């Protein structure tokens, strides 16, 4: 008689692939449901291919308060009873699992592709015999008097990534929004297999281009855990500075874009420009405004000299002042606040039920932040207080960003003032074979989760990337319920999710 087994690990702590194995699917399902009932949150759920075309279903449940991850797995073949039927958080994961591995979660409430990844004209070996055209699928629909449907995308009005939005409305009011993605699907997870290779770092840096640092850090921490690499304090600090610069740049840009969506042009103009200034600070680190080329396994590829520190200090100061002046205008303008207040509100209960992450969760009063809950790198030594608000609406999501901008700017300055000496790049050895690791970082949108494992040859035999957008797109759909359809752009911008990070 086998007994229940699972693994409890910390952020990016490697373990043997077989340690987490449960005897059967029913035990697996019960274990995951129990973990969630005890306050766990599904950070990853997917199926890992093992020998001879078999699969193992794997779940990573994050306990934010305890700072530990529980990893469960079980052999799976063909089908299994859906977890989503009892646990809404699992809904999107199980669609991904079904689409990628062809394993059917029986009783799943809405089983359909999330990426349409078999729709490749030049593709080989599509699992699905009937490849579906991206976005051509069943949608929830309503009928009745004054009921109408609005379809938006994939090509949008601005310079925006492609996605399809289907609204079921009565008059101006949205009953339901269904979001259909996959247009940006370019096969990153598939191409990661067999790595690390010369292109691997570029895949993670472009998984979501505005989060190059966040994803590169998650990848590097995964690789470092599997190779037992020690990263120097100086490199940890430079990574931390880059991660927070990425956060500030995007948050400032979002506040400007939110101002633009309610027609308040002063803040839109100022923040649009300041965002560029912050991106230019990242370019001071490595030459690239998105931080490409900076974070590498073993540390960072560029050092900071005194001149760069002086330059960054000077620029930080003026960016902090300009941002304060620009953003304060928002909170003092009744025309802005009237649009932000109580628009697209989510409750903390719903936030937990569907497993939101990042500023969207913190704006619901849920203090969830990988930097504090699962501290990594420099955040084990220097804490940034978690910023929350309790309204769950557009205002909350905007205000949390503003709080985070201020705290991140202060953090960056502190780190620049006390840069530890030492080297910046440690040599990275071969990856240990048959090992498994889960690496979490807090990107500016929220939790980035990379799940990786190696085969007997020490190469990736499985690589899963969960961008925060993977968790939060459904939150946007829920936020639109009973809202005016004209508030969609505003709600959408208040989440500002990644299409490419979802589609991969």
């Amino acid at each position, binding site marked *: 008689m086998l007994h229940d087994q699972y693994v409890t690990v910390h952020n990016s702590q490697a373990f043997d692939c077989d340690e987490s194995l449960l005897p059967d699917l029913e035990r697996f399902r019960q274990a995951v449901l129990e973990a969630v009932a005890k306050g766990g949150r599904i950070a990853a759920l997917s199926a890992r291919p093992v020998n001879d075309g078999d699969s193992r279903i794997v779940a990573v449940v994050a306990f934010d308060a305890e700072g530990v991850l529980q990893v469960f797995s079980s052999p799976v073949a063909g089908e299994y009873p859906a977890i989503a039927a009892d646990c809404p958080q699992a809904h999107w994961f199980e669609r991904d699992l079904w689409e990628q591995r062809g394993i059917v979660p029986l009783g799943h409430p809405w089983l359909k592709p999330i990426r*349409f990844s078999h729709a490749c004209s030049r593709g080989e070996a599509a699992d699905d015999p009937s490849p579906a055209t991206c976005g051509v699928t069943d949608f929830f629909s309503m009928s009745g008097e004054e009921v109408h449907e609005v379809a938006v995308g994939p090509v949008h009005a601005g310079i925006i*990534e492609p996605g399809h939005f289907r609204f079921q409305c009565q008059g101006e009011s949205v009953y339901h929004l269904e979001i259909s993605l996959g247009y940006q699907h370019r*096969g990153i997870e598939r*191409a990661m297999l067999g790595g690390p290779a010369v*292109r691997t770092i570029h895949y993670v840096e472009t998984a979501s281009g505005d989060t190059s640092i966040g994803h590169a850090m998650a990848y590097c921490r995964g690789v470092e855990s599997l190779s037992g690499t020690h990263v120097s304090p100086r490199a940890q600090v430079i990574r931390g500075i880059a991660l927070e610069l990425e956060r500030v740049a995007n948050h400032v840009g979002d506040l400007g874009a939110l101002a633009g969506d309610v027609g308040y042009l002063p803040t839109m103009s100022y923040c649009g420009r300041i965002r560029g200034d912050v991106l230019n600070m990242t370019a*001071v680190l490595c030459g690239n405004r998105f931080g490409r080329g900076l974070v590498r396994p073993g540390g960072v590829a560029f050092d900071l000299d005194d001149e760069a520190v002086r330059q960054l200090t000077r620029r930080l100061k003026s960016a902090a002042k*300009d941002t304060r002046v620009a953003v304060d205008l928002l909170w003092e303008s009744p025309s802005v606040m009237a649009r932000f207040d109580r628009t697209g509100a989510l409750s903390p209960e719903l936030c937990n039920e569907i497993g939101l992450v990042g500023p969207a969760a913190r704006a619901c009063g849920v203090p969830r932040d990988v930097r504090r809950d699962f501290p990594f790198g420099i955040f084990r030594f220097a804490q940034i207080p978690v910023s929350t608000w309790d309204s769950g609406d557009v205002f909350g999501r905007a205000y949390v960003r503003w709080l985070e901008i201020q705290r991140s700017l202060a953090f960056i300055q502190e780190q620049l003032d006390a840069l530890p000496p030492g080297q910046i790049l440690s040599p990275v050895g071969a990856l240990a074979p048959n090992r498994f690791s889960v690496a979490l970082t807090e990107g500016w949108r929220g939790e980035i989760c990379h799940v990786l494992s190696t085969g007997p040859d020490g190469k990736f035999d499985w690589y899963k990337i969960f961008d925060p957008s993977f968790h939060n797109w459904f939150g946007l759909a829920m936020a639109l319920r009973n809202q005016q359809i004209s508030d969609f752009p505003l709600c959408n911008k208040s989440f500002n999710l990644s299409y490419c990070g979802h589609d991969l």
Partner: protein
Amino acid sequence: MLKAIKARLQQGYRTTSYPDGPPPELPRHFAGLPVIDSSKCLPACRQCIPACPTQALDIDTRTRQVSLDTGRCLFCRECQRVCPAGAIQFSRDFRLASSSRERLVVTDSSPLPAVELDGAIVRLLGRSLKLRQVSAGGCNACEADTNVLGTVGWDLGRFGIQFVASPRHADGLLITGPVTENTRLALEKTYQAVPSPKIVIAVGACAISGGPYLDHPEAHNGAASLVPVDVYVPGCPPHPLTILHALLATIGRLPRGL
């Protein structure tokens, strides 16, 4: 209201004077147009070739001439790092765009890339260029650094260049991304909806060659496999200055010699 005016004064005037004045300062580690000196290459050395993530480099077996295709290059500088002889250097020249795919390939003696469009189309679009942007796969960084040209720091509108919502209002497309199979139909329909004559500008390594997704079955190795491309803008992503330079060159608004 008074506070808004005060804030306006505090923020000041921030639009770059380029191209009439000097371009904004580029960061110290900026990687621009590569410069190649094949005469420095060590005999039989090919270390740069496997270091390149996108097969952008080639060494002619007969002439020993190194060539670097900036249309594929991610500007990661791994080739420069592994080269024991310093034969490949990345300069600070941000002017990377070309109307010829072949001229994106840099060798010891290659001419500088240049945008040379037909005079008739420049006369037609030179004073008002409306573009529809199509994001066709990729990572959203090229989109972000195209979008930034609309901010007050760059103020693209002062050149008569504008991004419009409808392809029917557009004079052409600005395409980013490798063109995933999932965006192919949307791109083709959008292209057809733009009235002729029209131009197509491909921005970023993905849109030119597939970029890091080169030869992925899920994507099409760039826009040119589906629509005719007039201007190529290399980079991963290109710096906003590189994109602005390309757009100004497209409409013939660059002062002589820039």
